[in-house]
């Protein structure tokens, strides 16, 4: 695997391989020596054109625990404001002998473009409103662990509801692609104003009525809704949003008893998710964060762990 740009690029075998290794990697998290020598001598540069402390830290720890040299470049506004093009910025870094770039950008497709320009591997750490494949993988890891603990070992028949601002979400595209590859049923829930154009062609169920589907969900994945969206006319008030699409206490009670609750964070408590739901016993919110490092270790290993074409041995 040279790059990880889209969750849709992963075959079922590749996805399972990443998740399986991530489970192994999680053991390292609980060891005294949290380090594997596997990427010793490799250089990973986290280039974040958009702030994301959570994702950047997670990738940084993952790289360091694999013994790679991990460097953070906060590219937000720096050279871009000086008028340097994305291509020039990345080619400059690429010339320094980097093995992999972890890219976060506010523009959709940025990681794809960079992968076409540089020699190094590229891992997409979130591009605009497009994709965030490692988030989808860590969601899947947390969900899989939850259901394995309950003795359920197959994805088949699991019904995942993804609820919230699907229009501006990079998480939803990656999750739909990955969860479908794994064999889940997916139902998307959002007000019509927050549904992506053409969502009906994604091969998933789409509805604007959360109450109609809530009782049949095995996983309720609540996505963050930015308050700024109100001024864009996407919905009238916070109250109305929570009333229609929030995981309220009432809806929490209507979920199946073993259903998992996910949220990629950061949460707007009281809006898309009530505190009752966020802190419920079956809430995977913190498991998701914990899974993040392990999944990213696994992804970095899959991208950099083997021989690189073109490098003489």
């Amino acid at each position, binding site marked *: 695997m040279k790059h990880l740009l889209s969750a849709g690029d992963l075959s079922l075998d590749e996805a399972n391989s990443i998740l*399986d290794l991530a489970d192994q990697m999680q*053991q390292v998290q609980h060891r005294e020596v949290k380090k594997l020598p*596997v990427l010793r001598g490799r250089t990973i540069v986290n280039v974040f054109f958009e702030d994301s402390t959570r994702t950047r830290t997670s990738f940084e720890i993952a790289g360091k625990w694999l013994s790679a040299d991990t460097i953070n470049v906060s590219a937000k506004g720096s050279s871009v404001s000086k008028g340097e093009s994305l291509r020039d910025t990345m080619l400059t870094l690429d010339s320094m002998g980097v093995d992999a770039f972890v890219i976060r950008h506010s523009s959709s497709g940025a990681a794809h473009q960079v992968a076409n320009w540089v020699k190094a591997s590229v891992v997409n750490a979130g591009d605009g409103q497009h994709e965030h494949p490692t988030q989808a993988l860590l969601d899947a890891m947390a969900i899989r662990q939850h259901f394995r603990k309950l003795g359920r070992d197959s994805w088949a028949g699991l019904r995942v509801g993804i609820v919230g601002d699907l229009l501006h979400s990079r998480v939803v595209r990656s999750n739909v692609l990955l969860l479908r590859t794994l064999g889940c049923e997916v139902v998307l829930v959002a007000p019509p104003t927050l549904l992506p154009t053409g969502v009906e062609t994604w091969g998933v169920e789409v509805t604007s009525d959360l109450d109609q589907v809530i009782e049949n969900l095995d996983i309720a994945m609540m996505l963050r809704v930015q308050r700024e969206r109100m001024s864009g006319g996407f919905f009238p008030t916070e109250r109305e949003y929570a009333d229609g699409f929030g995981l309220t206490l009432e809806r929490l009670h209507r979920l199946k008893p073993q259903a998992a609750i996910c949220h990629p964070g950061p949460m707007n408590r009281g809006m898309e998710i009530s505190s009752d739901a966020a802190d419920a016993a079956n809430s995977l919110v913190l498991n998701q964060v914990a899974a993040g490092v392990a999944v990213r270790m696994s992804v970095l290993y899959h991208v950099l762990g*083997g021989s690189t074409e073109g490098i003489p041995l």
Partner: protein
Amino acid sequence: MKETVSARVIADSAEISRMVVRMAHQILEANAGAEDLVLLGIPTRGVPLAQRLASELGRIEGSPVRQGSLDVTMYRDDLRRNPTRPAGRSQVPGSVEAAVVVLVDDVLFSGRTVVAALDALRDLGRPRSVQLAVLVDRGHRELPIAADYTGKVVQTAADEHVWVKVKEIDTEDEVAISREAQR
């Protein structure tokens, strides 16, 4: 699976069983009992061999012996020479701290796998001692490694392949030498 005309069987199921029993006795003798022993098989075929050794030890001693697996993929020095390989499972029962760890593998060849295993073990803790048990020692060492317990020493040419088959994975027990790669 590719059948090769040149494959030569050097140990059958019965002989493999005898080797396991013999090694179990040697381990007990060397360590004056099975206390503090932890047997760690190196994936893939070291794992069932460690299980067999542990159950043999348990049978002789009358109490269970700790056993598990130690994946060394992440510690190999040849990772970059090959396409990304899937990592195996590590399952270490309890702590290795102050334990006597016996690493178990099917074939001892260059010694590189064992070095990787020692590195992996070091990151898990500090055993009192580490020993090595292998079913077949085929020579051609590239590193200063020697086995403490050996089922069989086999003279081989460097370009020959030694195959250990175990019924837990390969449906039969057998050690064979061939000129060509199989499996």
